[in-house]
């Protein structure tokens, strides 16, 4: 074998041996000391840990965590996130963490409940790119070729263990990765942003009915008051009163006429509410005079009054049959 070949062979063996040993040692360290090398795949933790950085994280119990620590945890969908603790609420062995990327204006939307977390203790810029490249299909193929070459160099072409060893290494590596026991991990340090829009919502202002219109259009030409229903939420309390505000006399009719009541609860907004002033019966001195009709708008829900009471003048004149007192619009 020429000297150049021998040097190349030795160099390959040394490089492969050292890299392989480093891999095995990091696997061992991960298992023995709960150390996880993390590759940052996004950059919201820059400049402390930029995208492509390799972070070394050590698992610690929740009670050891403090605000300001950079921790790596799993989110609700099982994705690994590495951000800084900005809020911590310890509860027994558990901690509720609020995390935020250093480069983010807003904290992560969800809090993280943890019993333990991987605290990042060291960062190596760009080293994660190497691991990322090694784990790519091209990197894996290169590693397989290198290992195959080294096994052939070390054991010779005819050695039966070479293909078996290669296959079992691939199977073991895949098994370790799939089972989740490999300590290495890729972590997102995702960016966040938020935007907002505000609107002021209101309900219509309190309303009151317009003064009723009086017309002689009721049964037998009696006074009929009409006004527009201002809102479906409202009803109208009405009453016939003396000019001094005391209730008007109901007279001697049996049953007595209703000289007060509530209208319009079922009237649709915009439709007319209609009130025919009832006729009274009795001796003329208490009936044949001027009266007023009070109408007040109020809420159906709690009967609270929503505006001023309107006062509509009416008077009574004797109708047919004697001692029957019919209401007419206006005062005399």
């Amino acid at each position: 074998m020429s000297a150049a070949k021998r040097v190349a062979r030795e160099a390959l063996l040394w490089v492969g041996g050292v890299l392989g040993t480093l891999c095995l040692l990091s696997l061992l360290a991960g298992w023995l000391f709960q150390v996880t090398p993390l590759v940052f795949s996004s950059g919201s933790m820059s400049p402390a840990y930029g995208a492509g950085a390799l972070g070394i994280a050590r698992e610690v119990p929740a009670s050891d965590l403090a605000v300001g620590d950079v921790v790596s945890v799993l989110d609700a969908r099982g994705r690994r996130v590495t951000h800084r603790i900005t809020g911590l609420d310890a509860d027994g062995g558990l901690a509720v963490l609020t995390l935020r990327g250093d480069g983010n204006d807003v904290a992560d939307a969800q809090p993280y409940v943890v019993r333990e977390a991987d605290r990042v203790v060291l960062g190596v810029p760009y080293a994660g790119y190497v691991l990322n490249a090694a784990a790519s299909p091209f990197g894996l193929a290169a590693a397989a070729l290198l290992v195959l070459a080294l096994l052939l160099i070390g054991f010779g072409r005819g050695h039966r263990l070479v293909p078996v060893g290669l296959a079992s290494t691939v199977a073991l590596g895949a098994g370790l990765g799939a089972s989740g026991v490999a300590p290495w991990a890729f972590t997102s340090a995702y960016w966040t942003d938020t935007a907002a829009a505000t609107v002021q919502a209101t309900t219509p202002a309190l309303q009151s009915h317009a003064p009723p219109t009086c017309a002689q259009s009721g049964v037998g030409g009696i006074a009929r008051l009409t006004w527009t229903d201002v809102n479906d939420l409202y009803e109208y309390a009405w009453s016939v009163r003396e000019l001094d505000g005391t209730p008007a006399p109901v007279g001697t009719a049996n049953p007595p006429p209703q000289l007060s009541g509530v209208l319009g609860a079922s009237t649709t907004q915009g439709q007319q509410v209609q009130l025919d002033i009832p006729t009274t019966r009795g001796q003329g001195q208490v009936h044949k005079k001027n009266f007023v009709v009070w109408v007040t708008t109020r809420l159906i829900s709690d009967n609270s009054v929503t505006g001023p009471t309107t006062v509509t003048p009416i008077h009574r004149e004797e109708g047919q049959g004697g001692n029957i007192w019919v209401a007419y619009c206006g005062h005399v």
Partner: protein
Amino acid sequence: MTRRTARHRSSRTGWFGHGRTRALLSAGLLLGTGAVATSAYWTDREVAQGVSVRSGELHIDLEDNEQAKPETITDWPDLNLTGMADGDTRAALMTVSNNSIGDATLSYGVKAAATNPLGAALRATVRQGGSINAGTCVGGSLVGGASVPLNGFDEAVSAHLGPGQSHDLCIQVRLPSPSGVLANATSAVTFTFPARQEQ
């Protein structure tokens, strides 16, 4: 020149100098990278695609805004919620854009909050890609439930926004009848759109 064997060398350089030892140890490289690749593939396929975003900023923007930060549209003019009587429904379209620096895809959600008894009575319906027809949102895909309480609304939009993409969100607000809300009531309604980088 006599052929030197690995055995000769091992006596000189110790166990690591043994060619077969180094060849065997080099298998650790394949073991390790294989484990990393498989683990990444199983746990997060997106991450396993590679470390792509080196620097940048995530920007979710509303309407015509471009990389506004912090971003709040006060009194959003498109949605008129004044004079809401019982049974009233109002709707408006909100454009949500991904104007991030760097090729970041983002996921986002819609949150809503509203104060006072009026706010507690309001109902919201959000449709991604929907349009307004006769004052209500139609079409598109429903985000969360239909006509659910507006206060506390917190739903993720299932479709992600790629770099430069935008979505139209149809936002509908209804005051049910009867609401029991008094006249002259007010409520400060806030829609928030939290976003996170996905790739």
